[in-house]
Structure formats: structure tokens, C-alpha cells
């Protein structure tokens, strides 16, 4: 079905493979690239051939620098480490999952985790395969905190107090997260380069916005708005002021029920972060569907055309073996060639 898993299944499968190989006393040496959406590359590397227990998991994301700007890099690293702290038991000196200090990060990557392959279990492997989600959840987490702060205030805060977090997840494409005292607004800025995609995306987004109105069973879903111009919330901070790129803006309005506890928060983040992937995947699927309809039509037309061809019966009546060969030698009008 049209379902994309939240975690990176390839990373998961690779870690399971490594873990099993270790348990079978045949540890592997790896140097592999794993990719993810939005210019994300993960790299698994066994740094020391002799000591195969340790594996470096490095990640480079396009959005890293904008994430660092949300607060600062140190807090971000601490936040990521906190996601994996539950697997590191205190009694042991060596951590199972540990972020390496900045100077030891593998060249060309934003972050390197050192993993103890021998001590991974299913739960930690699944969590590691969510690494990208964990990293990108940082501004969301900040907004949840900010929201709590703002909503605790008695007077509604002035507009100056409102801060917006920006995640530049692709070139020219951003996610804006703006907490206020009663809601959190998440705005996706996205661009389509291909002409066909532009049309598909427009139709799709219009239907997508309407689906909440039409269907009663999804009334609890966040409200979705769609516009071709930057919404007022972010009009001052949009980077693409030049109008030659026509960005589309999709706004999700999250109410407190969408982030009332940790579990729901995490789900909300996962779903929002997957929005663009689903969106693009869906458009590609629609195109594939159109193509299959087109092939079907063409085949039908060819059948009709073939009906207009001359019968080859008179050939078969001769019963000669050369009849088969001659059959193909016809002029464009279907007349048989005689020579």
C-alpha cells in the first residue's frame, strides 16, 4: 500500500544484520552508505578492524545548520543524546550509544554516534533507525516548550514575543514552526520544478484541504490550509522574496490535543515530518496511474487499427512454410510484396 515507514528500514535491517553477525561470532566490517529523504545520508563504518564491536553511525542532513540556529548546537547534541540515554546503563562505563565529540566526527558528516553492536536490542535498533526523526524533532520540542510558556501567561503575548523556528530541509524549501498561546502553526514551504508536478500538486492540495470538511470522521485532525503566497505568520521571515520561484505553502494548525502527551507528540512529529515524502510519493503514484491508463488506451487504439489490416488468411491457405516470412513483407497499406 501507499505506506512509508517512519523509520529507516534499511538502517534497521543493516543494524540487525550487524547485531546478528556479532551474536553468531562472525562480526562484520562495514563501510556502507544509507540514504534518506531530503538530502540525508547515513554512513555506517567499522573504525577499527580489530575491534569490531564498535560501529560509527554518522549522519549528514541538509537541515542541520538551520537546526543549530534554532537554539545552539550544544543543546541540540544534548537533546539527541537524551533520546538514547535510556539504553546506556550507568553501571557500565562504556555507553552503548554515544555521540562522539565534535573533533572526532567522521569527515563530512554532522554527527557521529558510536554504537556498541554487541549490546543492541530490537528496541534500540528501532530507535536508532529513527535517528533522523529524532534530530528533526528538535524544533518541535522547542515549540512545545515555548507553547507551555506562552499558554501559562495570563495576558495574551504580543506579537513580538512570538518566535518562529525555521528548518531549511531542502534548498528553497522550509518548515516554519510558530508556537503561540493557544496553538502551534506548522507551515511547509514546498516547490515543484516539473510542470506536470505543479498541476498534480495543486489539484492534490485542494482536495487535501477539502477532505477534512467532507469527512466527519477526521474532524480531530489538524486544520490544513493551502496558499500560493506566504501566510501572514511568516510573511516577514520568508527567504524567497523573489517571486520567480512559486512556492506553495501548506499550513497545519496544531491544537493542544495534538501534543497533549509525549506519545502523541512523537506521532505528530513523525506524521508532519513525513508529509512531504507522502505528498511527493502520492504525486508520483498518480503519474504512474495515469501512465498505465495511457498504455491501456494506446493498446485499445492499436487493436482498432489492427482490425483494419488485411487478413493474412489467403497466405495460410497456401500452406507453405515461406508464407510466414512473406507475411511480414507488406507495404504500409497492407499490400503484399511480390518479388
Amino acid at each position, binding site marked *: 500500500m501507499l505506506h512509508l515507514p517512519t523509520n529507516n528500514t534499511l538502517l534497521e535491517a543493516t543494524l540487525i544484520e550487524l547485531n546478528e553477525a556479532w551474536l553468531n561470532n562472525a562480526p562484520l566490517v562495514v563501510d556502507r552508505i544509507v540514504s534518506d529523504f*531530503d538530502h540525508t545520508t547515513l554512513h555506517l563504518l567499522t573504525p577499527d578492524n580489530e575491534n569490531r564491536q564498535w560501529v560509527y553511525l554518522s549522519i549528514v542532513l541538509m537541515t542541520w545548520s538551520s537546526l543549530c540556529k534554532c537554539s545552539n548546537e550544544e543543546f541540540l547534541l544534548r537533546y539527541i543524546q537524551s533520546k538514547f540515554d535510556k539504553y546506556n546503563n550507568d553501571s557500565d562505563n562504556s555507553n552503548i550509544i554515544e555521540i562522539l565529540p565534535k573533533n572526532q566526527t567522521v569527515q563530512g558528516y554532522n554527527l557521529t554516534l558510536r554504537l556498541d553492536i554487541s549490546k543492541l536490542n530490537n528496541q534500540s535498533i528501532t530507535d536508532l533507525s529513527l535517528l533522523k526523526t529524532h534530530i528533526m524533532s528538535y524544533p518541535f520540542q522547542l515549540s512545545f516548550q515555548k507553547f507551555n510558556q506562552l499558554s501559562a501567561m495570563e495576558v495574551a503575548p504580543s506579537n513580538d514575543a512570538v518566535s518562529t523556528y525555521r528548518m531549511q530541509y531542502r534548498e528553497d524549501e522550509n518548515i516554519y514552526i510558530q508556537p503561540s498561546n493557544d496553538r502551534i502553526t506548522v507551515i511547509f514551504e514546498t516547490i515543484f520544478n516539473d510542470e506536470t508536478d505543479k498541476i498534480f500538486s495543486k489539484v492534490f492540495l485542494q482536495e487535501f484541504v477539502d477532505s477534512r470538511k467532507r*469527512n466527519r470522521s477526521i474532524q480531530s485532525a489538524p486544520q490544513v490550509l493551502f496558499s500560493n503566497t506566504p501566510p501572514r505568520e511568516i510573511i516577514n521571515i520568508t527567504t524567497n522574496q523573489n517571486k520567480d520561484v512559486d512556492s506553495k505553502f501548506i499550513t497545519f494548525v496544531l491544537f493542544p490535543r495534538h501534543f497533549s502527551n509525549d506519545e502523541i507528540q512523537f506521532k505528530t512529529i513523525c506524521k508532519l515530518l513525513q508529509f512531504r515524502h507522502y505528498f511527493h510519493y502520492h504525486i508520483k503514484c498518480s503519474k504512474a496511474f495515469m501512465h498505465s491508463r495511457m498504455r491501456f488506451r494506446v493498446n485499445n487504439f492499436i487493436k482498432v487499427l489492427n482490425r483494419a489490416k488485411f487478413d493474412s488468411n489467403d497466405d495460410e491457405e497456401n500452406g507453405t512454410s515461406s508464407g510466414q516470412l512473406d507475411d511480414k513483407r507488406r507495404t504500409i497499406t497492407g499490400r503484399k510484396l511480390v518479388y
Partner: protein
Amino acid sequence: MSYLNNPAIVMDNGTGLTKLGFAGNDSPSWIFPTAIATSQGSQSTSSSKKLDTSMNMSNTNYSSSTTATGATSTGTGTNKNSYYAKSTSATAFDNLSSNVLLSNNLAGKRGTEDLDFYIGNEALIASQGPSYSLSYPIKHGQIENWDHMERFWENSIFKYLRVEPEDHYFLLTEPPLNPPENREQVAEIFFESFNCAGLYIAVQAVLALAASWTSSKVIDRSLTGTVIDSGDGVTHVIPVAEGYVIGSAIKNIPIAGRDITLFIQSLLRERGEQDTSLKTAERIKQEYCYVCPDIVKEFNKFDRNPEKFAQFVVENKERTSKKIIDIGYERFLAPEIFFNPEIASSDFLTPLPTLVDQTIQACPIDVRKGLYNNIVLSGGSTMFKDFGRRLQRDLKSIVNNRIAQNERLTGTKSTGVDVSVISHRKQRNAVWFGGSLLAQTAEFRGYCHTKQDYEEYGPEIVRNFSLFNMV
């Protein structure tokens, strides 16, 4: 350009197995059967209901999965293993239901059925249920069902590789003698459906040659050689001169992995072993078989030395019962059918070395030396121990006999022909590995056709690709 740092994607869609991965890796990230399980739209009541609400449904499904209320998808890793494991076989052993190929034609369906499908191992599992039917979109190396293939690619890119095709260059493979129309179709799908950044379509045999460069025996990196590609269904012998396949000389024999498995199975059955399933036979093939230099001597060796007989333990899934299977002469007899086909079949009798010789003799005379010099193995069925050595010896004797006869008849001295068969460690996925090797080079992007090129010239642009000049 932002996609400069993204690794290129190498996709090798074979008849049986698909190999997917990133350039620069030493092995494919995913290996699964090239199979797709599509829903059978013929379920009367439920599907017609679905049709009515299809428009709503697609939106509902979508938005509910993007909102917070959607079901969690972080399952445990254990039960996923079977879906995501790397397979070495294209056969679905657990497939109890017969593969009813009912209406697989998507075009007859009008609902959301086009989204309801699985690929790879998931497809094999799904097809055991009543509502999915399995099909293999590639037959004899060539794509037969474009609808299915398009969706197969779509799912493998987004779900398995997790990449945005717009950001990556793609290297695809095609069988030798693939009609250019098929290439154009592939290009249409990749550029128009997926908007991929760039595309290169390479011939499998050429990639297999490139993969052999990792062997220490290879000194010059030339693209001249004979490729012996033996997968599950057919064994091809493909001569390649300077990167171009000599199409007129390609020969194939209908003996490959599956025949060896069946042969082992028949031997087990004759002996009345406890377990004679195809799965057992395949594992025996993969783990115990080897090629012997002389079949008669090997029989004697076995008779004198009973330790050579191995035993193989079959456990059922719950690990409650054990069956012990004796493995005897099939250890060396099974791969022997490449060299003496008469022991297994009665309709095909040319041994592989003879066929290789015939192939090379059918090529232009000025490339023959190069072809004898560089015989490269590729595919899982060439993995038997000493396969290359035996092939080299047999071929050498054929060639030497001919030279001797020639010298006797003409009275002139020949300079001799050097026969060498190259086997290397990446043989199993040689085609994919060769692709990975080429696609990670800095020049690769220059050889690709980009989306801009495609839009400028149209699909016929992919009829020609410039060759890698790696020397």
C-alpha cells in the same frame, strides 16, 4: 546543485532478483525477488463499495495517516526480518497457494487498487492470502509488464531506498540485445514519472566485466572479454569487445541454478531421504557443492574416504523436530551438469566449455584473443568452488587441440592462445557491484543523460550512452 553530494543509485532488476543500492557500497542494500503482488479487484461486493467512495477514501487514508491519530508504525524488529531479509533465491518456498494470475491488468480497475500492492519479499507473503496475486514483471531479462514495473520502481525508490528521485542519479541495467524501444520506455518512466536527476542504462555484461577489475588477476582495465552469466533461469555466454556486446555471437544454455537444484532434489528423492524439499536442495547446493577436476577420480575418492559424505540437518520452523539428510555424490555431481549436461538432461547436450569456445569462434577474428584472455564469471550459479579452474582447464584443452590440429594441417607454428578465467569475490552480485564501481567515479555524472537533456531531445536520447573509458 544540491544533489552533487548524494550517492548515485544502482538498480539491477533481474528476472528473478532485484538488487538495489547506493554507489560506493560493496554490496546491494536490498536484494529481493522482482515480484509484485497486486490486489485482485474482482471481489464483488467489497470492491464495488470501495469504488463508490474511492475518491473520498484516498483522501481519508492519506490525511489520517498524516495526523496524530494514525497508527504507530514502529513495530519490533523481529517479525520484520522476514520481509526485509536479503534473499538469495527468487523462489517462494513457503508459497502454498497456487499463483493464480487472474486479471492483473490494472487498467481495468478504477478505484484505489493501483496503490494496493506489495513488492519483493512482502509480495511473496501477501500473495499467500486470498486477495493478492503475484506476478513477475520481468521475463527473460526483459520487462514485459510496464504497469507493474513502474509501480515496482516507485515502491522500491520511496519505500526501500528512501530517496527523492529528483536528488539522485540512477544507474539501471539492461540485458544484452534489449530493444531500444524498451530503453525509451524506461527513460520515459524515470524522467517523467520520477523526474530523476540523471539516468544511465548499462548493459549487464559490461558491468560484470567492470566488476572483475577487483580481481588481482586483472592487470589492464579493458572492457573486452567473455562474460558467463549464470543466474537462476538461463546461462548466457556474452562476448564483449571494447564495451560493445557482439550480439550475433551470444549463446545461452538452459542450464542454470534452478536446474542444479532440481537435479539435487531428484538425487535426494531417488535415495529416499527424509526431506526432499526444494528448499533443502537449494541449501545443499549453496553450502556443500563444488566442482571436481575429474568425476571418476572423485567417485573413487568418496568411496575410499567416507568422511567426504556430509550430513545436513533440517529443522522445522519451531525447532522441534530434526531431520538428518545425507549428502553424497551430489556434492560434486550437481555442478557437473554444466560440464557434462547428459547426466541431467537429454535434450541439451553441449557442455559449457564447448559453448564458450563456439561463442568466441563466432566473433570477429581480431578480438578472439582478447575474449579467450578475459573470461569473467558472474551470477550466483558460478559461485561453486573451482568452477573457474575447471572451465579454464577444459577450455584450454579444446583450444590447444584446435591449435595442434591447425599446426599439423598448415605446417606453421602458432603463437598460442592464452585462456584465462577470472573469478573474484563479488561474483554473486557482479553486475550490481560493477555498477556501483562505475557510478561512484567522478566522471559518472558526465556520462548520464540529465532531465534537461531528456526534455530537450525526447526519449530517443537514451538510445546512445557513451561508454566508460576507465583505462
